[in-house]
């Protein structure tokens, strides 16, 4: 739920270091941001989402704008966190343990697993077959609720490329799903 008319006051309070304001901003966006990160394979989506917000906090003084702009700015940072994460993963040996969660409390694990299981294995499978860009774009559009333009800004591609990626992603998805049904 967007903060709407309360956004400006909340933003100002957040700049002044009010915890309640940060709690409000985080509660509002943690769902789509964490969901986006989880959907893109981040094992520690919760950690990445909170890191995203801490980065937002470091730069909040320089942010001027409305809620919509804030939202897509947060996704820009989240996407970068995701890319950083992927990079750190690719440096590790490919034997990434599936359920390792480096977080301090064990409670995190349960929630992350819960997020992971949102999508049925069949769809997850089909989704994994898409290209990185197609998955980024579709996840940002569907989970992040970003417009085409905002999505282009987040993934750093041209509008046309984003449109094409989403279209091709859907075509590929349909194809994989149908193939699956035929072979079953």
């Amino acid at each position, binding site marked *: 739920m967007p903060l709407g008319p309360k956004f400006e006051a909340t933003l100002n309070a*957040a700049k002044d270091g009010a915890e*309640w*304001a*940060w*709690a409000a901003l*985080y*509660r509002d966006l*943690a*769902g*789509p941001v*964490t969901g986006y990160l*989880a959907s893109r*394979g981040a094992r520690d989506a919760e950690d990445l989402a*909170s890191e995203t*917000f*801490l*980065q*937002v*906090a*470091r*730069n909040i*003084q*320089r*942010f*001027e*704008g*409305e809620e919509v*702009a804030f939202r*897509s*700015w947060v996704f*820009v*940072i989240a996407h*970068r966190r995701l*890319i950083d994460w992927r*990079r750190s993963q*690719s440096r590790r040996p490919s034997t990434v343990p599936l359920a390792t969660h480096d977080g301090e409390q064990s*409670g995190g694990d349960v*929630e992350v697993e819960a*997020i992971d299981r949102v*999508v049925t294995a069949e769809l997850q499978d089909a*989704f*994994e077959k898409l290209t*990185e*860009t197609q998955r980024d774009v579709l*996840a940002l559009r569907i*989970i*992040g609720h970003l417009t085409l*333009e905002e999505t282009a*800004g*987040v*993934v*750093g*591609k*041209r509008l046309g490329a984003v449109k*094409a990626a989403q*279209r091709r992603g*859907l*075509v590929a998805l349909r*194809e994989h*799903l149908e193939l699956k049904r035929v072979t079953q």
Partner: protein
Amino acid sequence: MRRRSDYRFEMFNATVSEQEIERLLTGPPAGNGPLSDLAVFVEEMRGYAAYVPSDSLVDRVAAEAATLALATRESAVNGTKASPPSRRRWPALSPRAAVATLSLLMVVGMTGVAAAADSAAPGDPLYGLDRALERIGIGAGSAAERLEEADQLLTEGQTLQALEHATEALDGDTAASAALDIAIDRVETAANENSAAVQEKVGAILNFMSENIGKDEGVDGVDFGQGIADIARGIATASENVTPGPVDDPPPGQQNRPDEGEPPGNGNRGTGSGSSDPPGSGGTQGNENSGNGNQPGTGGNQGGGTTDPSGNSGASGGGNGPPSEPPSGTAPGRGNRP
């Protein structure tokens, strides 16, 4: 099998409108219509956003964020800009100075830097300027130029990036871009995307494109796309040998994809002047630095891209948004987009 995917892509294009896709992705659940099979997927994906953080997590993040915000606010109040000096690898250029610099370049025209920039490939510091100049009509970027750049990437061993860059030579959803997508798909799933065999095929695709693109406006021609697709199918994927593991992280180096031709500071696009693009501010570093922007002090970006010129100009032109995070004003610049 791959041929069928070409066909499907075209069918999809022919039968599904942009509005229908928009409705599928953002609207209420679609009960029927051509995309109803995909509506299930969309609904499930939406489930991800239903995540609710625990109270303790919210408290922890809020407390930390509040402290950080306060700390940066105090340093801002004390007269020092919140951005640590170590981030600034190039001296800050005022928007006016940036305009002056670029005007001079425009007067000088295609000589010197502009000429050098024109031949810049993605990843080069001057590539951003190359694209900026192209946007204002200097050294107009042609499909041929994109393909040359793609070729350059290939010689640097950036196979996937080369292919993705080649898509920029095509405009729109054509059979050709569907065919390139097949190639990208296959390279991505190849056992080794930089193996000699893969590189050879990609080289063949680029050659084929250079030789045939633009012939009787042939970009939309089915034959053109078919030609690409035929070569693309020759790329052996890992699944044809070994089944790839479930981990889909890209190999090292893939992060630096310079495939997005447009700089993230694309807020300047379409302003007609392009003058707020300082040298090195565009093009590649959006991704290149994707981590940097988040980590003040890490530095290390080759283009000096996180310097303030781009951030400032984006903000002053477009208005709302954080001047330096994202570095090149992705968010702030959005207001300028035509």
